[in-house]
């Protein structure tokens, strides 16, 4: 259980800590890595030379994200009715699917819950319990995609020393989550939905653009010029909600200490690098670890890892096969 409480604490904003206890095998690996210096460099170079090329997971993910959002669009425009509605609430072939965070805001504001809302929310909770919670963020949310492009621009400008990344305390997302929930309850309005770029973009794609896109543009400008992935990292309550849902998910990014050269490429591309503190030299408390609840399962680290230390994994299933 301590593994889960650690993962949830990091999700809520606490910085990752050095582990107090190491498993015997992990300790041994750490020691070995300190000793064999010469071989170490040679192996590292060898792994780099033979690393897999391209970004297969990013390509799969972008294809899926675009496909699912397009399915919303064509379901309405071509009237094929496969996936009706928007990301906040929809019907997939008639079955209710309701975004967990939107449902939460509505339940708190309205203080009355009808069956369809329970069914739709329940379905989505089960879905993301199976597929990893924040997987919603990187595999479905349309804002995530445009934010990735904004991030590319930010990183480019940062390299040119035109902009610098300003970090925030990650705990602010937890505070905002609580205050947004409280505001919905007290005012009786779904206050957060007014600025949710996920809802705004999803509706803009399906029902046509509007003034609200100006707000999304402001958010992107903030991320490009001031804070890398600022919205997704420090603000969005949807991410935190799905973080909870996915905390116990079997689908994870698995870290294997044996294969890691601790070069840190993965942390450079990660949206939530605090989940990858475990890859720092001497930090892994066990041979096999997973990246924890805040991980969006985007697979950027899997793509970039030269030695195959980070891989997608389904707990139990991989063993079974």
């Amino acid at each position, binding site marked *: 259980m301590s593994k889960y409480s650690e993962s949830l604490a990091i999700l809520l904003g606490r910085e990752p800590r050095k582990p107090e206890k190491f498993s015997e095998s992990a300790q041994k690996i750490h020691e070995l890595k300190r000793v064999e210096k010469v071989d170490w460099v040679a192996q590292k170079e060898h792994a780099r030379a033979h690393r897999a090329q391209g970004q297969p997971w990013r390509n799969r993910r972008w294809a899926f994200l675009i496909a699912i959002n397009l399915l919303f669009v064509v*379901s*309405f425009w071509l009237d094929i009715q496969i996936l*009706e*509605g*928007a*990301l*906040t*609430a*929809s*019907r997939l072939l008639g079955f*209710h699917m*309701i*975004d967990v965070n*939107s*449902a939460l805001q*509505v339940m708190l*504001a*309205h*203080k*009355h819950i*009808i069956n*369809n*809302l329970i069914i*739709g929310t329940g379905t989505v909770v089960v879905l993301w319990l199976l597929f990893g919670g924040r997987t919603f963020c990187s595999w479905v949310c349309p804002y995530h995609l445009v934010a990735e492009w904004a991030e590319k621009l930010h990183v480019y400008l940062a390299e040119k020393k035109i902009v610098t990344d*300003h*970090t*925030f*305390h990650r705990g*602010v997302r937890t*505070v*905002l989550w609580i*205050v*947004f929930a409280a*505001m919905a309850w007290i*005012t*009786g*309005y*779904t*206050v*957060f*939905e*007014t*600025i949710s770029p996920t*809802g*705004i973009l999803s*509706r803009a794609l*399906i*029902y046509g653009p*509007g*003034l*609200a896109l*100006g*707000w999304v543009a402001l958010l992107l400008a903030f991320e490009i010029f001031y804070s890398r992935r*600022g919205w997704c990292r*420090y*603000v969005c309550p949807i991410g935190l909600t799905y973080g909870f849902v996915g905390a116990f998910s079997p689908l994870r990014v698995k870290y294997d200490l044996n294969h890691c050269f601790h070069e840190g490429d993965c942390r450079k591309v990660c949206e939530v690098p605090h989940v990858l503190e475990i890859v720092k030299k001497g930090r892994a408390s066990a041979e096999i670890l997973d990246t924890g609840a805040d991980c969006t399962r985007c697979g950027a680290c899997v793509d970039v890892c030269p030695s195959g230390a980070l891989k997608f994994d389904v707990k139990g299933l991989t063993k079974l096969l």
Partner: protein
Amino acid sequence: MTSENPPPVPPVHPAINRKRLEERRRFLRTAVLAAVALGVPLLGFTPAARGWTPLLRPPGALDEHDFLASCIKCGQCVQVCPVAAIKLGDIDHGFGIGVPYIDSRSQACDFSCDAVQCILACPTGALSYKKPLFLPVRKGAAVANPPILLAKEKDAEPTLNLKERTGLAVLVRPDACLARQGKGFKGAARGSEFKGMLRFTAVDRWKPIPLSDHPFDVALCDLCVRTCPIKGAISLEEEVGNDGIKRKTPVVHEPCVGCGVCEMVCPPEPAAIVIEARKTWGEA
């Protein structure tokens, strides 16, 4: 930010001080971020605070505040409407962003779906046949009897399963009314360019057609009466004015649910008859 003056007391350990300074900066930044993230959505209050004219909501909508609270902003009601009467609010509607409304003048709800599809599509009960018990029904918002839809008057179930009206038709510009002027009307109600759709059971029981495809030719304009989809909601009545002259005038009756067809077809610009959203029967 980096060019700030060093603190007046010489630092004992510059490295630690710099770290502390950066931490303090980060804390302040975070506080500002939180204030902005909470402040901006609260601007959503402004439309409500300014008391904007209430928008006409789709049939079966809960009272305004409850409607905004319960709507999940998904637009499924938009997708099922056969005449595309339902639009979604933009960010200038504040908390009404993504919330459905109807602009009757450009496209009214003509009930050509028969079953009030938008209510069936709503996943949260923001649009509903039956209000939850804890929500009060405003006096005069409840309709006396289930409204009879003329298009299915001869069916086994001729009524629309609506308990409340979303508004009421009001003759706000009586002087503009063609009937009151004793004038007839010939041609397309709103001109040939008008895009609005309307179902005429005499033309097609199931499919709405463009209003511009259905020209009228009447000796005395009664377009609002002849296009009204609800039985007994509006009629032309004789009236003797203060000037002692007899004239015919449209009179709205209790069954009116506020669908907006009369506002859409009314030929003069701006319309003589409009829907006042949220208006109740018996209200001045």
